[in-house]
């Protein structure tokens, strides 16, 4: 399809949606608490940038086995 046929989507772009702090806490609380407690079967260890031409740059997470202590903070990137 020609680029000219693909105009900016102004005519049908709907307004953005804000998230409240209450919503955010509700969404992430359980997962965040699990992380803080080190209770996972696996834990994220580091995140690496991934470079992709033409796509939103995501990140790739590497994982490790949990620390023995249930109160250990998540480890930092190596």
């Amino acid at each position, binding site marked *: *399809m020609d680029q000219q046929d693909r105009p900016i989507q102004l005519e049908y772009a709907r307004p953005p949606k804000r*998230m409240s702090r209450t919503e955010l806490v509700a969404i992430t609380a359980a997962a*965040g608490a699990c992380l803080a407690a080190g209770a996972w079967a696996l834990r*994220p260890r580091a995140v690496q940038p*991934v470079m992709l031409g033409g796509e939103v740059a995501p990140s790739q997470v590497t994982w490790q086995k949990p620390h023995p202590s249930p109160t250990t903070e*998540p480890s930092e*990137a190596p």
Partner: protein
Amino acid sequence: MYERYSLILMLTHNCTMRCDYCYMGQKRDTVMPEGMACHAIDRAVRSVSDGGTLELGFFGGEPLLEADMVLDLLEYAQHQCQRRDQRLEPCLTTNGTVTDPTARIVLSWPGLRLAVSCDGIAEVHDAHRRFADGRPSSNTVHGTIRRLIADKADFRVVMVVRPDTLHRLVDSARMLRRMGVRHIEPGLDLWTNWSESDERRLESAIAALADFWGEGLPNHSIGWFDEKTAHIARLPIPPITRCGFGDGAMAVAPSGRLYPCERLIGEDRPDNPMCIPGHAAEGSDFLHLRSTLTREHEVCTHCAMEGMCNTFCRCSNYARTGDIRRPDSLLCTWNQACLAETARVLAKVCPGDMVAKVKLVEPAAKMRI
């Protein structure tokens, strides 16, 4: 000087395929002169401090149509970086249909970060990704993926997600995983219409895909959820220089025109408002090209998710709203659903009683989110 600089070279407007959702415009046999590409590399190298990192990306069109030039440029960049004790991180995005011997040498280049575009199962892939003569391409692309897996190559598969393919998203991801693909990077087609109903379906599809992601941890990754995991886990996220939008990142069209992101090149029309003043062949570095464009927007600064969100991707915002600072409902829906489903799946990994205990000793209010 930058510690990291990202240079993306769009080597050609030509392509073996005519994907109907391609945002790079009409295909034509226009190729970047190799001398200009070398000069752009020189400028990027001079923009990186000694000991720093140059990210060099090859994009198109289909960059492997110019595989000989890619090899020359990889060797040239390697030499130039070594002279300044810089690290070279090359990357290439291919549609997986060019399989001649030179292309295979490129694909096996040591350290190359490779992305192969494939939308998954044949029904989905062939609906939009066809050769220039109209033939379906899934057989060829799947063959390339199988060969890369047999060669033990480390690569990612980039999947375009559209309203009409949402219902097969998990099927496509499952098929790729069965083939042996370990890293899947879905990406929304931002250049098409997403109705409110489509957004609701997107939320459901993200939920199903998140469950599939959770089943594959830790050996399989899906980009949408990896990044949100990092945010929830409070992992330090390294700077992703290609999002510098002209500041620490530059995309060069075959004509030599400069852009803050390769996604904005399109047909490289002279009147493209996203074009950065200057030319790849003029100048000794890219240091003077500092972006004055901010991503701050009132809508985002009042959103609690701002720091965990992908709406910083200014070209995505531009594609949706015409304003690099302003996302739209689709981008917000996508980000919020990815965060919610990532958190849901991660919490599921932890036994329920443990969640309850942890909540008692560490109230959510103390979390740094």
